C-alpha cells in the first residue's frame, strides 16, 4: 500500500528512493548523454515510447526524471517535463498545442518575455494572441474564439502583482473546452496549486523560488491530466496522428499524460531545450527546503510591508496581501498562506530618486532576477526600461519611480537598515530638487 504523503515529505522524497546498487541516499547526478541498451528489443521499445526508460538525455535523464516526478507530485499533476528555462517551458506548451492559424488568449499583465513570445515571435509563425485583463472574466470569455487553443495567465503577475482569479477563469475554459495554462512561478506549489483550482497545465520557472539559490536556470511543465483532448479537429497535435511512432494519437495511447508525451516526443526531441542533470540536482536541493524557505519569505515580506508602509520615502506600495490591492479578496481566497514575496513600491522623487536608492543599498542585490534566497532589487526606470519616457513606461504598466523588491531570507532588520541607507540617498535628491 502506498501512502499519501504531505507536502514537506514529498519535497524531500518524491521521485527517489535509495539507490538499489549503491544505497546512495542523495539523488545521484547521472551526468551522461546516453544509456546502453540491453538489447535491440529494448532499444526499439524506448525509441517508440512503448515502455518507460531513458535513451538520450535530450529526451530524458534519471536525475531530471526525479526532479520531474517530485514536481508532478508537489503540484498534484499526472506528469511533468522539466526543461532548460521557464521560457522554454512556455514555448514547449504553445508549440505542443498550437499551429499556424490558431489563437491564444493571454493575460496582458504578464512577464514581458511571455508577452514578447506571444505578441512578436509566435505571430511570425501564424499564432495570434488576444491580450486581456486577467481578472475581467467577461473579457476573457468574449476573447475565446473557435480557433482558441490555449488560455494563458500567471497566478501572480510580474511585475504588476495582479492575482488571476484562477478558479473562475478555469470554469470559463472548461465551458469553452480550452485548456488553461498557468504560470505559477511566483507562488510555487507551497502557496497554491493551480490544478486543484481547475487549471490544466502549470508552468514554472525553476530558477526562482523553487530552486531558490540563484545558481541554476530551469523550467517545468506540469500536466494536470484533467483536460479532454479528444476533439481531433480542435486539438490535432494531441489527438490526431503523430508524424512518427507509427502515427499514434497521444490522446488514445497516453490519455491523461498525452500532453507531456507530446512535449517529450516532439518538443524535447525536435527543439531540444533540455535541462542539464547538474542543474536538475541543484534544483532538487532547493526543493528539499521549499516550504521552510517560503514560510520565511512570507514572514519577511509581511515585516517588510509594515516597514515600507510607515516609511516617508515611499509614495505607494503594492502587494496582494494589502487590503487596498484590487485583487486582495481573490488573493486571500486562493493564496491563504500569503501572496508571494515580491513587493512593488514607488519612491518619492521619481526616476532619479529610484536610481539613488538602488545605488546606495549594499546588502540587497541590484539584479534581474527574483525568488533568490537573497534580497533582490531592480529599478526598471534606470535599468531595463531606462530608454523609455515616463509616458511610455506608463503604457507598459510601469512608473519611473517603481522599485521591484524580491524579499530574501536575511534577518529582516539588516534589510531595513540597508533600505534606510538607500532612502537617505533618495531623500537627498528630493531635497535638492525642492
Amino acid at each position: 500500500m502506498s501512502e499519501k504523503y504531505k507536502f514537506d515529505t514529498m519535497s524531500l522524497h518524491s521521485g527517489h528512493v535509495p539507490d538499489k546498487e549503491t544505497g546512495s541516499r542523495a539523488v545521484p547526478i547521472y551526468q551522461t548523454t546516453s544509456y546502453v541498451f540491453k538489447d535491440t528489443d529494448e532499444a526499439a521499445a524506448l525509441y517508440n515510447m512503448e515502455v518507460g526508460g531513458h535513451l538520450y538525455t535530450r529526451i530524458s535523464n534519471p536525475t531530471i526524471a526525479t526532479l520531474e516526478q517530485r514536481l508532478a507530485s508537489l503540484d498534484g499533476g499526472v506528469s511533468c517535463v522539466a526543461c532548460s528555462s521557464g521560457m522554454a517551458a512556455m514555448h514547449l506548451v504553445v508549440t505542443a498545442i498550437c499551429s499556424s492559424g490558431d489563437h491564444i488568449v493571454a493575460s496582458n499583465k504578464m512577464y514581458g518575455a511571455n508577452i514578447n513570445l506571444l505578441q512578436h515571435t509566435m505571430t511570425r509563425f501564424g499564432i495570434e494572441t488576444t491580450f486581456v485583463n486577467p481578472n475581467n472574466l467577461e473579457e476573457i470569455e468574449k476573447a475565446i474564439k473557435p480557433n482558441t487553443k490555449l488560455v494563458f495567465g500567471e497566478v501572480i503577475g510580474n511585475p504588476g502583482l495582479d492575482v488571476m482569479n484562477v478558479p473562475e477563469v478555469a470554469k470559463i475554459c472548461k465551458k469553452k473546452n480550452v485548456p488553461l495554462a498557468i504560470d505559477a512561478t511566483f507562488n510555487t506549489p507551497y502557496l497554491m496549486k493551480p490544478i486543484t483550482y481547475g487549471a490544466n497545465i502549470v508552468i514554472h520557472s525553476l530558477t526562482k523560488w523553487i530552486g531558490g539559490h540563484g545558481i541554476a536556470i530551469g523550467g517545468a511543465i506540469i500536466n494536470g491530466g484533467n483536460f479532454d483532448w479528444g476533439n481531433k479537429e480542435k486539438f490535432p497535435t494531441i489527438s490526431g496522428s503523430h508524424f512518427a511512432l507509427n502515427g499514434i494519437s497521444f490522446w488514445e495511447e497516453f490519455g491523461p499524460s498525452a500532453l507531456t508525451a507530446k512535449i517529450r516526443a516532439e518538443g524535447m526531441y525536435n527543439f531540444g531545450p533540455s535541462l542539464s542533470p547538474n542543474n536538475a540536482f541543484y534544483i532538487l536541493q532547493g526543493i528539499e527546503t521549499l516550504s521552510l524557505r517560503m514560510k520565511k519569505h512570507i514572514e519577511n515580506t509581511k515585516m517588510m510591508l509594515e516597514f515600507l508602509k510607515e516609511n516617508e520615502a515611499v509614495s505607494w506600495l503594492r502587494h496582494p496581501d494589502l487590503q487596498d490591492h484590487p485583487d486582495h479578496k481573490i488573493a486571500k481566497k486562493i493564496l491563504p498562506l500569503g501572496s508571494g514575496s515580491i513587493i512593488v513600491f514607488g519612491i518619492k522623487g521619481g526616476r532619479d530618486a529610484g536610481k539613488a536608492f538602488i545605488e546606495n543599498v549594499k546588502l540587497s542585490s541590484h539584479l534581474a532576477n527574483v525568488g533568490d534566497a537573497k534580497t533582490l532589487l531592480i529599478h526598471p526606470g534606470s535599468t531595463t526600461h531606462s530608454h523609455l519616457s515616463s509616458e511610455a513606461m506608463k503604457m507598459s504598466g510601469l512608473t519611473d519611480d517603481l522599485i521591484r523588491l524580491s524579499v530574501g531570507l536575511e534577518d529582516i532588520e539588516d534589510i531595513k537598515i540597508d533600505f534606510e541607507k538607500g532612502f537617505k540617498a533618495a531623500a537627498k535628491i528630493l531635497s535638492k530638487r525642492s
Partner: protein
Amino acid sequence: MYKDFKGNKVYLSTGGLNLVNDKETLCFVHGAGQNHYSFTQQIRYFVSQGYNVVAPDFPGHGFSEGYQTTSIEEDMLWLSELLAFLKIEKATFIGHSQGCLTILELAEKKPELVMGLVFVAGAMSIPVNDFLIDTSINNPEKAYDLMVTWGQDIYGSFSISDWPGHNHLAEGNAVMKMNDPSVLSTDLKSCNLYENGKQAASTININCLAVLAKFDMMTPLKKGLQMVENIKQCDYKILECGHFLPIEQPKELNALIKNYLNSLK
C-alpha cells in the same frame, strides 16, 4: 480505434495499428474502474513484437459508450461477441484484476476462443468490502483515491516510475475519472457477486501464467496462489509490487508475458 458495436461506439486500443488476420492476437482485459490505459506499457510493446493487440474499453469505460455490464458473465459475453464482431477466432487473453474473472469465465464458457491465459494480479473471486462499495456509490472520487493508494506499493507514494516524469498516484486517479462516476461501483458489485471462479479455473486445460504481486492489497497474494493451485497447469511469478502491476513493473511483466507467449509456440 473506434467501432460501432451493438449500437454503440466502442473504443479498442490496437496500439495505433490496424488488425491483421494472419497475426496472433493478444486481448488485454482491464479491471474495475479502469480502461485500456491500464496497459499503456504493454499494448504498443506487444504490437512491436508482432502481435495483433486488442485492448477494449468495456461499455461506459474510457472512450466506450453504452450501458455498463453488471456481472462478470455479461462482461464475458460482451467480450466474446466483440471478438466475433472483429473476426478474431482465437486469442491469448491477459486480464488484470476484474479482467482475470472475465477471462476465467471465458475460459470455461468459450474455450474455443482461448489460445492462452495470463492472469495479472488475479484471483478466482474478488470480494469487495462494503466500505469501498458504499464509497464508490456515494463519493466516487474518494473511492478512486482509496483504490490507487491501496493498489500501489510504497513506491507509488514516492512517484517512483520508469516513465520519466510520471506520478502514478495522480495518473491512476485521472484514468478512473475518465469513466462515468457510476462505473466503479457497478464493477465492484460485479466482482463481489461472482462465484463461479473456482469452477471455471478447474476446467482450464491449457498452460497458463499468473503474475502476482507480493504487496497486493486488492487481490491478496494468498488468493492468487489459490487460483494457481486450482488450475491444472499454471506457472506463476511473484513480483515485488502492488496491485497495479502493469504500471508498477511493466518491463518485468512484459518479459514474463513474452516468455509465456514463446512457450505457446
